[in-house]
């Protein structure tokens, strides 16, 4: 069976990264923006795993880095959602356009 080349996996991960970035810049719902950031982090995970498997299979640095990224992303999401809930209490909306009291 033919193996998928590294370049294709890197293409997928880079594509995913920029989909995430596009989502963060265009979406106005805070939860969706958070999801976009998770997408960017996941593309980094794919990168690490692919590099580890294809180029440096003798040590597991990349795999462990991925585990830590997943853990920290969960912690970050927990704090972010707590903040969003608090924002909803005061603004009655989770749209970023409604939270614009401070500008310039």
């Amino acid at each position: 069976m033919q193996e998928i080349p590294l370049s294709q996996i890197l293409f997928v991960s880079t594509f995913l990264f920029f989909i995430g970035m596009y989502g963060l810049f265009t979406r106005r719902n805070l939860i969706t923006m958070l999801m976009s950031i998770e997408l960017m982090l996941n593309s980094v995970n794919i990168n690490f795993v692919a590099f580890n498997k294809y180029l440096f299979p003798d040590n597991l640095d990349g795999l462990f880095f991925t585990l830590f990224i997943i853990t920290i992303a969960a912690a970050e999401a927990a704090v972010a959602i707590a903040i969003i809930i608090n924002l909803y209490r005061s603004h009655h909306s989770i749209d970023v356009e409604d939270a614009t009291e401070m500008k310039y």
Partner: protein
Amino acid sequence: MMYNILIQLRQELVLTVLIFLLLFIKLGKDRSNESILNFINAALFINLGAGFCCHETGELFNGMFNTNALIVFEKNLLNLAVLLISMQSYAWLKNSKHLIEFYLLILTSLLGMFFMISSGNLLMFYLGLEMSTIPLAAAANFDLTKRKSSEAAMKLILSSAFSSAILLMGISFLYGTTGTLTFSILTAHLNGNPLQLFAFILLISGFAFKISAVPFHLWTADVYEGSPVAVTSFLAVISKGAVLFTMVNLLYKVFTPIASTWYLVLVVLAAATILIGNLFAIRQDNFKRFLAFSSIAQVGFILIGISGSSQIGSASLIYFILIYIFSNLAAFGVVSVVSALTGKENISDFKGFYKTNPMLSWVLTIALFSLAGVPPTAGFFGKLFLMMAGAAKGNYGLITFAALNMVISFYYYLRVVKAIFMEEHATPIEKLQVPTVSKLAMYICVVGMIVTGLASVVYDYIYSISIGL
């Protein structure tokens, strides 16, 4: 062997013990806020003292964590700043129901910064960075009922998550091109191929987000304005200082093979940061926003010093951060007391401040002079050394540009001094009862601002322990 770990990790261990102690106090029976605050201030003082005793060079956990005299000194600076912030926010925290949570958040963040500064591995560095930013976002939301506070926290967590995603992308490409995460091995594998340069640019963008250098500064002013003053001063002084220390470590020790690239990046960032920071600071009326933009401009000057890439470069950075701690915390201290007791945070409210509060006015004035860089204060020497370090590279255009921008900065700093001393206000801020602890912190800052500049022994010591390219 066992004792080595205890000595090399002692600053982190003391902090961890303190965090657990606070958790137990929270669980235990009700105590008055005053007694808890006094206990915490004493504990932070002990923490600061513990940093100065017996240090030792070495590395732990297979190179993940390393320490030497320079790193210990940097951590002591951060400890000192936390102690000063804690003393200054006495008036604000005295009536807060959640003061222990506040300390838990900022001390956890400080612990993360310690690990980040000591890191010898990209994984450890990333963990430290996240451990220092996530609690800060929660702390920015500390005034749970204020609309501005939750908006600031939302902006902080989203932009810091975005910046850490970019930084991680950079780290993943560095890993892909070098096959290692350890700093010492990484240097040997760097050869400046395009993918590595791309990875480096992503990494430095992540840093620029955290120190709010100019194309990445947009979150700064909003977050500083919305957060409580104590958190704002933590963000402006400690968080920035820790990231700058780590950045110098990385640039001078790890990215040496591509030094010509990062020199260019730093020059562009520095010039943009100084100019934009200054121009936006001119038009601010909210004191915290004003200090936010002034701190952006200060970061620009620091980047010039770093770009010198010599031993003077890193020594002048640490010296400047020491002065910056004193002068910025003195300014924030006055704003913090005024904001806690009257709720006023605008520069126009400070008109005629001298008539009612001469002591606070003098502290604020000396702090602003030191930030601007007027000779008898230490700020002048700090900026002088940064410029000297930058000039060592022979890029006199940049130095001239920075010097001209210092003139602009005089305008907006002195505008505040003019408002305090010369302008009249129909209803000036009344005479404030400043808590003794906060007063003490302000006196320490004033003494620091004057003595650090005049006593050459401070700079000599920093120079003797710092590193060059």
